[in-house]
Protein backbone atom coordinates (compact mmCIF):
# COMPACT_ATOMS: atom_id res chain seq x y z
CA UNK A 1 0.00 0.00 0.00
CA UNK A 2 2.93 2.31 -0.42
CA UNK A 3 2.11 5.30 -2.56
CA UNK A 4 5.32 6.57 -3.97
CA UNK A 5 3.85 9.26 -6.13
CA UNK A 6 4.92 12.79 -6.71
CA UNK A 7 3.90 15.37 -4.16
CA UNK A 8 1.45 17.27 -6.31
CA UNK A 9 -0.26 14.05 -7.31
CA UNK A 10 -0.44 12.86 -3.72
CA UNK A 11 -3.07 15.38 -2.68
CA UNK A 12 -5.46 14.33 -5.40
CA UNK A 13 -4.93 10.68 -4.65
CA UNK A 14 -5.74 11.02 -0.97
CA UNK A 15 -9.05 12.75 -1.50
CA UNK A 16 -10.12 10.05 -3.89
CA UNK A 17 -9.15 7.26 -1.57
CA UNK A 18 -12.04 5.37 -0.13
CA UNK A 19 -12.95 5.70 3.50
CA UNK A 20 -11.33 2.39 4.21
CA UNK A 21 -8.08 3.14 2.52
CA UNK A 22 -7.65 6.58 4.00
CA UNK A 23 -7.18 5.39 7.52
CA UNK A 24 -4.84 2.93 9.04
CA UNK A 25 -7.20 0.49 10.67
CA UNK A 26 -4.50 -1.51 12.39
CA UNK A 27 -4.13 1.52 14.67
CA UNK A 28 -7.00 0.18 16.72
CA UNK A 29 -4.99 -2.87 17.66
CA UNK A 30 -2.31 -0.61 19.08
CA UNK A 31 -4.88 1.36 20.98
CA UNK A 32 -6.75 -1.63 22.27
CA UNK A 33 -4.85 -2.57 25.46
CA UNK A 34 -4.75 0.95 26.86
CA UNK A 35 -8.25 1.82 25.72
CA UNK A 36 -9.81 -1.32 27.08
CA UNK A 37 -8.47 -0.63 30.53
CA UNK A 38 -9.08 3.10 30.51
CA UNK A 39 -12.63 2.69 29.28
CA UNK A 40 -13.47 0.00 31.80
CA UNK A 41 -11.87 1.46 34.90
CA UNK A 42 -11.54 5.17 34.25
CA UNK A 43 -14.40 6.15 31.97
CA UNK A 44 -17.22 3.70 32.58
CA UNK A 45 -17.07 4.29 36.35
CA UNK A 46 -17.87 7.95 35.82
CA UNK A 47 -21.21 7.07 34.31
CA UNK A 48 -21.73 4.22 36.70
CA UNK A 49 -21.11 6.65 39.57
CA UNK A 50 -23.82 8.90 38.21
CA UNK A 51 -26.21 5.97 38.28
CA UNK A 52 -25.18 4.97 41.79
CA UNK A 53 -25.55 8.50 43.06
CA UNK A 54 -29.25 8.56 42.23
CA UNK A 55 -30.01 5.34 44.03
CA UNK A 56 -29.84 4.44 47.66
CA UNK A 57 -28.78 1.19 49.14
CA UNK A 58 -25.84 -0.52 50.73
CA UNK A 59 -23.01 -2.62 49.48
CA UNK A 60 -25.04 -5.38 47.89
CA UNK A 61 -28.35 -3.88 46.86
CA UNK A 62 -27.29 -0.54 45.58
CA UNK A 63 -29.86 -0.43 42.83
CA UNK A 64 -32.72 -1.00 45.16
CA UNK A 65 -34.31 2.41 45.18
CA UNK A 66 -34.23 5.23 42.72
CA UNK A 67 -34.13 8.36 44.81
CA UNK A 68 -33.49 11.05 42.27
CA UNK A 69 -31.41 13.88 43.60
CA UNK A 70 -32.07 13.25 47.27
CA UNK A 71 -28.53 11.96 47.85
CA UNK A 72 -27.19 15.25 46.56
CA UNK A 73 -29.69 17.07 48.71
CA UNK A 74 -28.63 15.06 51.72
CA UNK A 75 -25.00 15.96 51.22
CA UNK A 76 -25.55 19.65 50.55
CA UNK A 77 -27.80 20.12 53.55
CA UNK A 78 -25.63 18.02 55.82
CA UNK A 79 -23.67 19.91 58.44
CA UNK A 80 -20.95 17.25 58.43
CA UNK A 81 -20.38 17.98 54.78
CA UNK A 82 -19.99 21.68 55.51
CA UNK A 83 -17.64 20.99 58.42
CA UNK A 84 -15.55 18.90 56.10
CA UNK A 85 -15.57 21.60 53.42
CA UNK A 86 -14.52 24.18 55.96
CA UNK A 87 -11.75 21.91 57.23
CA UNK A 88 -10.58 21.24 53.71
CA UNK A 89 -10.53 24.93 52.78
CA UNK A 90 -8.64 25.64 55.99
CA UNK A 91 -6.15 22.97 55.02
CA UNK A 92 -5.75 24.24 51.46
CA UNK A 93 -5.30 27.85 52.54
CA UNK A 94 -2.82 26.72 55.15
CA UNK A 95 -0.67 24.57 52.93
CA UNK A 96 -0.70 25.95 49.40
CA UNK A 97 0.50 29.55 49.86
CA UNK A 98 3.04 28.57 52.50
CA UNK A 99 4.35 25.78 50.34
CA UNK A 100 4.64 27.92 47.24
CA UNK A 101 6.43 30.64 49.17
CA UNK A 102 8.83 28.30 50.98
CA UNK A 103 9.64 26.13 48.00
CA UNK A 104 10.27 29.14 45.77
CA UNK A 105 12.48 30.61 48.48
CA UNK A 106 14.51 27.44 48.79
CA UNK A 107 14.70 27.05 45.02
CA UNK A 108 16.05 30.57 44.66
CA UNK A 109 18.69 29.86 47.29
CA UNK A 110 19.66 26.65 45.56
CA UNK A 111 19.86 28.49 42.27
CA UNK A 112 22.64 30.72 43.52
CA UNK A 113 25.26 28.32 42.17
CA UNK A 114 26.20 26.97 45.55
CA UNK A 115 28.17 23.90 46.32
CA UNK A 116 26.30 20.72 47.13
CA UNK A 117 23.26 21.44 45.00
CA UNK A 118 22.66 17.77 44.21
CA UNK A 119 22.94 16.80 47.84
CA UNK A 120 20.46 19.44 48.93
CA UNK A 121 18.03 18.42 46.19
CA UNK A 122 18.13 14.83 47.32
CA UNK A 123 17.64 15.73 50.98
CA UNK A 124 14.74 18.07 50.32
CA UNK A 125 13.13 15.44 48.14
CA UNK A 126 13.31 12.62 50.68
CA UNK A 127 10.02 13.44 52.40
CA UNK A 128 8.26 13.50 49.03
CA UNK A 129 9.36 10.01 48.09
CA UNK A 130 8.43 8.54 51.45
CA UNK A 131 5.15 6.77 51.83
CA UNK A 132 2.67 9.05 53.49
CA UNK A 133 1.45 6.26 55.76
CA UNK A 134 4.84 5.53 57.22
CA UNK A 135 5.79 9.14 57.71
CA UNK A 136 2.38 9.95 59.23
CA UNK A 137 3.09 7.43 61.94
CA UNK A 138 6.42 9.09 62.60
CA UNK A 139 4.84 12.53 62.79
CA UNK A 140 2.09 11.21 65.03
CA UNK A 141 4.84 10.07 67.36
CA UNK A 142 6.60 13.42 67.11
CA UNK A 143 3.39 15.27 67.90
CA UNK A 144 2.73 13.37 71.12
CA UNK A 145 2.07 15.55 74.15
CA UNK A 146 5.35 14.48 75.68
CA UNK A 147 6.96 13.87 72.35
CA UNK A 148 10.08 15.27 70.85
CA UNK A 149 8.51 18.32 69.20
CA UNK A 150 7.17 19.62 72.48
CA UNK A 151 10.49 18.88 74.16
CA UNK A 152 12.19 20.90 71.48
CA UNK A 153 9.70 23.77 71.67
CA UNK A 154 9.92 23.74 75.45
CA UNK A 155 13.69 23.77 75.29
CA UNK A 156 13.74 26.76 72.94
CA UNK A 157 10.95 28.85 74.38
CA UNK A 158 10.01 27.41 77.74
CA UNK A 159 6.40 27.10 76.62
CA UNK A 160 4.92 23.61 76.96
CA UNK A 161 3.48 22.52 73.67
CA UNK A 162 -0.12 21.39 73.28
CA UNK A 163 -1.24 17.82 72.75
CA UNK A 164 -1.21 18.58 69.08
CA UNK A 165 -3.31 15.86 67.54
CA UNK A 166 -5.77 15.72 70.39
CA UNK A 167 -6.44 19.43 70.53
CA UNK A 168 -9.24 20.80 68.39
CA UNK A 169 -7.31 24.02 67.81
CA UNK A 170 -3.98 22.47 66.96
CA UNK A 171 -4.82 19.26 65.16
CA UNK A 172 -5.34 20.80 61.74
CA UNK A 173 -2.29 23.11 61.99
CA UNK A 174 -0.31 20.03 62.94
CA UNK A 175 -1.43 18.24 59.81
CA UNK A 176 -0.79 21.34 57.74
CA UNK A 177 2.76 21.63 59.01
CA UNK A 178 3.43 17.98 58.29
CA UNK A 179 2.01 18.31 54.77
CA UNK A 180 4.10 21.38 54.01
CA UNK A 181 7.16 19.50 55.22
CA UNK A 182 6.29 16.53 53.04
CA UNK A 183 5.47 18.31 49.81
CA UNK A 184 8.13 21.02 49.87
CA UNK A 185 10.83 19.19 47.94
CA UNK A 186 8.57 18.42 45.02
CA UNK A 187 7.82 22.06 44.34
CA UNK A 188 11.44 23.01 45.01
CA UNK A 189 12.48 20.84 42.11
CA UNK A 190 9.83 22.23 39.81
CA UNK A 191 10.69 25.82 40.70
CA UNK A 192 14.37 25.10 40.34
CA UNK A 193 13.79 23.85 36.81
CA UNK A 194 11.77 26.96 36.05
CA UNK A 195 14.46 29.22 37.50
CA UNK A 196 17.16 27.52 35.53
CA UNK A 197 15.27 28.26 32.35
CA UNK A 198 15.52 31.99 32.83
CA UNK A 199 18.08 33.22 30.29
CA UNK A 200 21.14 34.63 32.08
CA UNK A 201 21.27 37.45 29.58
CA UNK A 202 18.25 38.97 31.29
CA UNK A 203 20.09 39.05 34.59
CA UNK A 204 23.09 40.62 32.93
CA UNK A 205 20.89 43.26 31.39
CA UNK A 206 19.36 43.99 34.77
CA UNK A 207 22.78 44.28 36.34
CA UNK A 208 23.86 46.74 33.68
CA UNK A 209 20.77 48.76 34.37
CA UNK A 210 21.87 48.87 37.99
CA UNK A 211 18.99 46.87 39.41
CA UNK A 212 19.36 45.68 42.98
CA UNK A 213 18.52 42.20 44.20
CA UNK A 214 14.89 42.84 44.99
CA UNK A 215 14.20 44.77 41.79
CA UNK A 216 15.84 42.04 39.74
CA UNK A 217 13.66 39.43 41.37
CA UNK A 218 10.45 41.35 40.97
CA UNK A 219 11.01 42.51 37.41
CA UNK A 220 12.95 39.65 35.89
CA UNK A 221 12.72 36.44 37.88
CA UNK A 222 9.11 36.58 39.01
CA UNK A 223 7.59 37.27 35.56
CA UNK A 224 9.85 34.74 33.87
CA UNK A 225 8.84 31.92 36.20
CA UNK A 226 5.17 32.85 36.21
CA UNK A 227 4.18 29.81 34.10
CA UNK A 228 5.91 27.58 36.65
CA UNK A 229 4.29 29.39 39.55
CA UNK A 230 0.95 29.06 37.82
CA UNK A 231 1.45 25.34 37.34
CA UNK A 232 2.54 24.79 40.94
CA UNK A 233 -0.38 26.78 42.27
CA UNK A 234 -2.99 24.88 40.28
CA UNK A 235 -1.48 21.45 40.93
CA UNK A 236 -0.99 22.09 44.64
CA UNK A 237 -4.54 23.32 45.08
CA UNK A 238 -6.07 20.38 43.27
CA UNK A 239 -4.04 17.83 45.15
CA UNK A 240 -4.47 19.41 48.57
CA UNK A 241 -8.24 19.32 48.13
CA UNK A 242 -7.86 15.57 47.94
CA UNK A 243 -5.89 15.11 51.14
CA UNK A 244 -6.74 11.89 52.94
CA UNK A 245 -3.95 9.59 54.10
CA UNK A 246 -2.46 11.92 56.70
CA UNK A 247 -5.83 12.48 58.30
CA UNK A 248 -6.63 8.78 58.27
CA UNK A 249 -3.32 7.86 59.87
CA UNK A 250 -2.85 10.69 62.36
CA UNK A 251 -6.22 11.79 63.65
CA UNK A 252 -9.00 9.66 62.22
CA UNK A 253 -10.85 12.87 61.44
CA UNK A 254 -10.89 14.02 65.03
CA UNK A 255 -10.76 15.41 67.55
CA UNK A 256 -14.44 16.25 67.26
CA UNK A 257 -14.39 16.38 63.47
CA UNK A 258 -11.83 19.19 63.44
CA UNK A 259 -9.71 17.41 60.89
CA UNK A 260 -12.39 15.65 58.91
CA UNK A 261 -11.63 16.72 55.38
CA UNK A 262 -13.93 16.05 52.45
CA UNK A 263 -12.26 12.86 51.29
CA UNK A 264 -12.28 11.55 54.83
CA UNK A 265 -15.98 12.24 55.01
CA UNK A 266 -16.34 10.37 51.71
CA UNK A 267 -14.45 7.45 53.18
CA UNK A 268 -16.77 7.44 56.18
CA UNK A 269 -19.88 7.48 54.01
CA UNK A 270 -18.68 4.70 51.75
CA UNK A 271 -16.58 2.42 53.85
CA UNK A 272 -18.01 2.86 57.29
CA UNK A 273 -21.66 3.77 56.78
CA UNK A 274 -21.96 1.90 53.48
CA UNK A 275 -24.00 4.71 51.98
CA UNK A 276 -22.67 4.27 48.47
CA UNK A 277 -25.23 6.50 46.80
CA UNK A 278 -24.40 9.40 49.06
CA UNK A 279 -20.67 8.80 48.73
CA UNK A 280 -20.99 8.93 44.96
CA UNK A 281 -23.02 12.12 45.16
CA UNK A 282 -20.38 13.62 47.41
CA UNK A 283 -17.63 12.64 45.01
CA UNK A 284 -19.38 14.44 42.17
CA UNK A 285 -19.95 17.50 44.28
CA UNK A 286 -16.28 17.54 45.19
CA UNK A 287 -15.37 17.19 41.53
CA UNK A 288 -17.53 20.18 40.67
CA UNK A 289 -16.00 22.24 43.45
CA UNK A 290 -12.43 21.43 42.41
CA UNK A 291 -13.36 22.14 38.81
CA UNK A 292 -14.90 25.48 39.69
CA UNK A 293 -11.97 26.53 41.85
CA UNK A 294 -9.46 25.56 39.19
CA UNK A 295 -11.49 27.43 36.61
CA UNK A 296 -11.56 30.60 38.68
CA UNK A 297 -7.92 30.28 39.60
CA UNK A 298 -7.02 30.06 35.94
CA UNK A 299 -9.32 32.89 35.01
CA UNK A 300 -7.96 35.31 37.58
CA UNK A 301 -4.31 34.58 37.19
CA UNK A 302 -3.92 33.67 33.53
CA UNK A 303 -3.56 37.32 32.60
CA UNK A 304 -0.56 37.64 34.85
CA UNK A 305 1.25 34.67 33.40
CA UNK A 306 3.99 35.79 31.10
CA UNK A 307 4.80 33.34 28.36
CA UNK A 308 7.92 33.62 26.27
Amino acid at each position, binding site marked *: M*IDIKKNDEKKVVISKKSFFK*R*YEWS*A*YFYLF*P*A*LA*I*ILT*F*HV*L*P*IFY*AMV*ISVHSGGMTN*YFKNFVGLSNFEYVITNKHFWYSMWNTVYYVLGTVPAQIFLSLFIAI*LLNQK*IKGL*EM*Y*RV*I*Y*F*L*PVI*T*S*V*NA*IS*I*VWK*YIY*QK*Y*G*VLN*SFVGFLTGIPGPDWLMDTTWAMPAIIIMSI*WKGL*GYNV*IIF*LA*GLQNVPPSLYDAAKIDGAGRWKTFWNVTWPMIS*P*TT*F*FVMIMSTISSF*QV*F*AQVYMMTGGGPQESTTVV*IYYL*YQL*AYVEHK*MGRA*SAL*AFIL*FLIIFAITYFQKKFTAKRVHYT
Partner: protein
Amino acid sequence: MFKSVKAEEKFLGTLIHIVLIIGALTMLAPFIWMILTSFKTKFEALDSTIIFPARFIYENYIIAWTKAPFFKYLLNTVFIAISCTILQLISSSLAAYAFSHMEFYGKEWLFSALLATMMVPQQVLLVPNYFILKQLGWLNTFYALIVPWSAGFFGIFLLRQFFITLPKDLWDAARIDGCSRIKFFFKILLPLSTAPLTTIGIFTFVGNWNSFLWPLFVTNDQTYYTLQVGLSNFNQSEGTEWHLLMAASTFCVLPLLIMFFLAQKQFIQGIAHTGSKE
Protein backbone atom coordinates in the same frame (compact mmCIF):
# COMPACT_ATOMS: atom_id res chain seq x y z
CA MET B 1 27.65 48.22 55.57
CA PHE B 2 30.23 45.93 54.06
CA LYS B 3 33.78 46.74 53.19
CA SER B 4 33.45 45.51 49.65
CA VAL B 5 31.15 43.73 47.25
CA LYS B 6 33.19 40.60 47.82
CA ALA B 7 32.70 40.71 51.55
CA GLU B 8 28.96 41.17 51.10
CA GLU B 9 28.76 38.26 48.73
CA LYS B 10 30.69 36.08 51.10
CA PHE B 11 28.35 36.98 53.93
CA LEU B 12 25.28 36.23 51.84
CA GLY B 13 26.81 32.99 50.66
CA THR B 14 27.32 31.87 54.22
CA LEU B 15 23.83 32.98 55.18
CA ILE B 16 22.37 31.02 52.29
CA HIS B 17 24.22 27.93 53.37
CA ILE B 18 23.02 28.33 56.95
CA VAL B 19 19.41 28.63 55.87
CA LEU B 20 19.72 25.64 53.53
CA ILE B 21 21.35 23.55 56.21
CA ILE B 22 18.65 24.37 58.72
CA GLY B 23 16.09 23.43 56.09
CA ALA B 24 17.91 20.21 55.29
CA LEU B 25 18.08 19.28 58.96
CA THR B 26 14.36 19.91 59.26
CA MET B 27 13.78 17.59 56.32
CA LEU B 28 15.98 14.91 57.84
CA ALA B 29 15.04 15.22 61.50
CA PRO B 30 11.89 13.06 61.43
CA PHE B 31 13.78 10.32 59.58
CA ILE B 32 16.62 10.37 62.06
CA TRP B 33 14.17 10.31 64.94
CA MET B 34 12.33 7.42 63.34
CA ILE B 35 15.46 5.33 62.85
CA LEU B 36 16.84 6.04 66.32
CA THR B 37 13.55 5.20 67.99
CA SER B 38 13.27 1.97 66.09
CA PHE B 39 16.18 0.70 68.14
CA LYS B 40 14.90 1.82 71.53
CA THR B 41 13.07 -0.07 74.21
CA LYS B 42 9.42 0.71 74.75
CA PHE B 43 10.19 3.00 77.68
CA GLU B 44 13.03 4.77 75.97
CA ALA B 45 10.65 5.46 73.11
CA LEU B 46 8.07 6.98 75.40
CA ASP B 47 10.59 9.38 76.89
CA SER B 48 11.26 12.07 74.36
CA THR B 49 14.29 13.43 76.16
CA ILE B 50 16.21 10.28 75.35
CA ILE B 51 17.78 10.68 71.96
CA PHE B 52 20.05 7.69 71.66
CA PRO B 53 19.02 4.25 72.82
CA ALA B 54 21.22 2.69 75.45
CA ARG B 55 21.56 -0.36 73.28
CA PHE B 56 20.63 -0.68 69.62
CA ILE B 57 17.85 -3.24 69.90
CA TYR B 58 17.28 -4.78 66.54
CA GLU B 59 14.77 -7.18 68.06
CA ASN B 60 12.08 -4.55 67.50
CA TYR B 61 12.22 -5.33 63.83
CA ILE B 62 11.83 -9.03 64.46
CA ILE B 63 8.92 -8.51 66.82
CA ALA B 64 7.20 -6.23 64.30
CA TRP B 65 7.74 -8.85 61.61
CA THR B 66 6.08 -11.52 63.69
CA LYS B 67 3.14 -9.33 64.60
CA ALA B 68 2.26 -8.63 61.01
CA PRO B 69 3.46 -10.25 57.78
CA PHE B 70 5.54 -7.35 56.58
CA PHE B 71 7.61 -9.47 54.29
CA LYS B 72 4.46 -10.60 52.50
CA TYR B 73 3.33 -7.00 52.30
CA LEU B 74 6.66 -6.11 50.76
CA LEU B 75 6.42 -8.89 48.20
CA ASN B 76 2.87 -7.85 47.32
CA THR B 77 3.85 -4.23 46.91
CA VAL B 78 6.86 -5.06 44.76
CA PHE B 79 4.87 -7.44 42.59
CA ILE B 80 2.02 -4.99 42.09
CA ALA B 81 4.25 -1.99 41.41
CA ILE B 82 6.43 -3.81 38.90
CA SER B 83 3.46 -5.37 37.11
CA CYS B 84 1.64 -2.07 36.81
CA THR B 85 4.75 -0.30 35.59
CA ILE B 86 5.57 -2.83 32.89
CA LEU B 87 1.97 -3.08 31.71
CA GLN B 88 1.59 0.67 31.66
CA LEU B 89 4.74 1.18 29.68
CA ILE B 90 3.56 -1.33 27.10
CA SER B 91 -0.02 -0.13 26.81
CA SER B 92 0.90 3.56 26.82
CA SER B 93 3.64 3.29 24.25
CA LEU B 94 1.48 1.26 21.88
CA ALA B 95 -1.37 3.73 22.15
CA ALA B 96 0.95 6.74 21.89
CA TYR B 97 2.44 5.20 18.75
CA ALA B 98 -1.01 5.05 17.21
CA PHE B 99 -1.79 8.64 18.17
CA SER B 100 1.47 10.02 16.89
CA HIS B 101 2.20 7.98 13.77
CA MET B 102 -1.09 6.76 12.45
CA GLU B 103 -4.18 8.29 10.98
CA PHE B 104 -7.37 6.67 12.15
CA TYR B 105 -11.01 7.53 12.36
CA GLY B 106 -11.85 9.53 15.47
CA LYS B 107 -8.24 10.25 16.39
CA GLU B 108 -8.61 13.85 17.57
CA TRP B 109 -11.92 13.24 19.23
CA LEU B 110 -10.56 10.27 21.17
CA PHE B 111 -7.51 12.16 22.34
CA SER B 112 -9.57 15.04 23.66
CA ALA B 113 -12.03 12.70 25.33
CA LEU B 114 -9.23 10.87 27.10
CA LEU B 115 -7.71 14.17 28.15
CA ALA B 116 -11.04 15.21 29.63
CA THR B 117 -11.35 12.03 31.66
CA MET B 118 -8.07 12.77 33.33
CA MET B 119 -9.65 15.76 35.02
CA VAL B 120 -11.96 13.60 37.05
CA PRO B 121 -10.46 12.97 40.49
CA GLN B 122 -9.74 9.45 41.63
CA GLN B 123 -12.37 9.61 44.35
CA VAL B 124 -15.26 9.71 41.88
CA LEU B 125 -14.04 6.40 40.52
CA LEU B 126 -13.64 4.64 43.85
CA VAL B 127 -17.20 3.63 44.60
CA PRO B 128 -18.23 2.52 41.10
CA ASN B 129 -14.98 0.65 40.57
CA TYR B 130 -15.65 -1.18 43.80
CA PHE B 131 -18.87 -2.50 42.31
CA ILE B 132 -17.33 -3.21 38.92
CA LEU B 133 -14.57 -5.20 40.57
CA LYS B 134 -17.09 -6.96 42.72
CA GLN B 135 -19.07 -8.08 39.70
CA LEU B 136 -15.90 -9.26 38.03
CA GLY B 137 -15.08 -11.21 41.15
CA TRP B 138 -11.80 -9.40 41.41
CA LEU B 139 -12.11 -7.96 44.90
CA ASN B 140 -9.35 -9.21 47.13
CA THR B 141 -7.22 -10.41 44.26
CA PHE B 142 -4.19 -9.05 42.53
CA TYR B 143 -6.33 -8.28 39.48
CA ALA B 144 -8.08 -5.48 41.30
CA LEU B 145 -4.77 -4.00 42.36
CA ILE B 146 -2.99 -4.25 39.03
CA VAL B 147 -5.32 -4.19 36.03
CA PRO B 148 -7.06 -0.83 36.59
CA TRP B 149 -3.67 0.84 36.84
CA SER B 150 -2.12 -0.92 33.86
CA ALA B 151 -2.99 1.95 31.58
CA GLY B 152 -3.38 5.66 31.97
CA PHE B 153 -3.51 8.78 29.93
CA PHE B 154 -0.44 10.29 31.62
CA GLY B 155 1.86 7.82 29.89
CA ILE B 156 0.06 8.05 26.57
CA PHE B 157 0.23 11.83 26.68
CA LEU B 158 3.94 12.06 27.52
CA LEU B 159 4.95 9.48 24.96
CA ARG B 160 2.83 10.93 22.21
CA GLN B 161 4.38 14.35 22.79
CA PHE B 162 7.79 12.75 22.61
CA PHE B 163 7.07 10.65 19.51
CA ILE B 164 5.87 13.73 17.69
CA THR B 165 9.23 15.41 18.17
CA LEU B 166 11.00 12.63 16.32
CA PRO B 167 11.71 13.26 12.64
CA LYS B 168 8.88 12.15 10.38
CA ASP B 169 11.27 10.75 7.83
CA LEU B 170 12.35 8.09 10.25
CA TRP B 171 9.30 5.97 9.59
CA ASP B 172 9.30 6.68 5.86
CA ALA B 173 12.91 5.63 5.58
CA ALA B 174 12.31 2.47 7.56
CA ARG B 175 9.19 1.67 5.57
CA ILE B 176 11.03 1.91 2.31
CA ASP B 177 13.57 -0.49 3.66
CA GLY B 178 10.78 -2.97 4.26
CA CYS B 179 10.32 -2.42 7.93
CA SER B 180 6.94 -3.32 9.37
CA ARG B 181 5.07 -1.16 11.86
CA ILE B 182 5.77 -3.56 14.69
CA LYS B 183 9.42 -3.90 13.89
CA PHE B 184 9.77 -0.15 13.71
CA PHE B 185 8.09 0.14 17.07
CA PHE B 186 10.34 -2.29 18.87
CA LYS B 187 13.63 -1.82 17.11
CA ILE B 188 13.68 1.91 16.44
CA LEU B 189 11.02 3.86 18.32
CA LEU B 190 11.31 2.35 21.78
CA PRO B 191 15.10 2.43 22.01
CA LEU B 192 14.98 6.14 21.18
CA SER B 193 12.44 6.78 23.93
CA THR B 194 14.35 5.73 27.00
CA ALA B 195 14.03 9.18 28.59
CA PRO B 196 10.23 9.51 28.63
CA LEU B 197 9.86 5.77 29.29
CA THR B 198 12.04 6.09 32.35
CA THR B 199 10.06 9.06 33.60
CA ILE B 200 6.75 7.26 33.15
CA GLY B 201 8.19 4.12 34.69
CA ILE B 202 9.36 5.96 37.78
CA PHE B 203 6.13 7.88 38.25
CA THR B 204 4.02 4.76 37.82
CA PHE B 205 6.18 2.68 40.10
CA VAL B 206 6.36 5.22 42.90
CA GLY B 207 2.70 6.19 42.57
CA ASN B 208 1.73 2.57 42.80
CA TRP B 209 4.06 1.79 45.66
CA ASN B 210 2.70 4.64 47.76
CA SER B 211 -0.92 4.20 46.73
CA PHE B 212 -3.21 3.86 49.73
CA LEU B 213 -6.85 4.74 49.22
CA TRP B 214 -7.34 2.33 46.35
CA PRO B 215 -5.83 -0.79 47.97
CA LEU B 216 -7.69 0.13 51.14
CA PHE B 217 -10.95 0.02 49.25
CA VAL B 218 -10.46 -3.09 47.20
CA THR B 219 -8.82 -5.46 49.66
CA ASN B 220 -9.64 -6.55 53.14
CA ASP B 221 -7.83 -9.85 53.05
CA GLN B 222 -4.45 -9.65 54.69
CA THR B 223 -2.79 -11.82 52.08
CA TYR B 224 -3.26 -9.07 49.53
CA TYR B 225 -2.32 -6.09 51.61
CA THR B 226 0.32 -3.74 50.32
CA LEU B 227 2.88 -2.17 52.63
CA GLN B 228 0.78 0.96 53.02
CA VAL B 229 -2.42 -0.80 53.99
CA GLY B 230 -0.56 -3.29 56.18
CA LEU B 231 1.24 -0.49 57.92
CA SER B 232 -1.96 1.44 58.58
CA ASN B 233 -3.48 -1.69 60.12
CA PHE B 234 -0.41 -2.18 62.25
CA ASN B 235 -0.72 1.43 63.36
CA GLN B 236 -4.24 0.83 64.54
CA SER B 237 -3.41 -2.36 66.38
CA GLU B 238 -0.23 -1.22 68.06
CA GLY B 239 -1.41 2.05 69.56
CA THR B 240 1.56 3.43 71.44
CA GLU B 241 4.15 0.72 70.87
CA TRP B 242 6.24 3.43 69.29
CA HIS B 243 9.43 1.40 69.14
CA LEU B 244 7.67 -1.25 67.07
CA LEU B 245 5.85 1.30 64.94
CA MET B 246 9.10 3.07 64.15
CA ALA B 247 10.72 -0.20 63.21
CA ALA B 248 7.83 -1.02 60.89
CA SER B 249 7.91 2.46 59.36
CA THR B 250 11.65 2.32 58.78
CA PHE B 251 11.25 -1.01 57.10
CA CYS B 252 8.47 0.29 54.84
CA VAL B 253 10.32 3.44 53.90
CA LEU B 254 13.69 1.88 53.21
CA PRO B 255 13.14 0.08 49.87
CA LEU B 256 11.91 3.16 48.06
CA LEU B 257 14.62 5.32 49.61
CA ILE B 258 17.28 2.93 48.38
CA MET B 259 15.80 2.90 44.90
CA PHE B 260 15.69 6.66 44.99
CA PHE B 261 19.35 6.95 45.96
CA LEU B 262 20.33 4.63 43.14
CA ALA B 263 18.35 6.50 40.50
CA GLN B 264 18.36 10.10 41.80
CA LYS B 265 19.06 11.79 38.53
CA GLN B 266 16.24 10.06 36.69
CA PHE B 267 13.76 10.81 39.43
CA ILE B 268 14.57 14.46 39.64
CA GLN B 269 14.83 14.99 35.93
CA GLY B 270 11.49 13.32 35.43
CA ILE B 271 9.79 15.67 37.85
CA ALA B 272 11.48 18.75 36.49
CA HIS B 273 10.24 17.73 33.06
CA THR B 274 6.58 17.43 34.01
CA GLY B 275 6.74 20.87 35.54
CA SER B 276 8.26 22.57 32.56
CA LYS B 277 6.12 20.83 29.99
CA GLU B 278 3.04 22.68 31.12
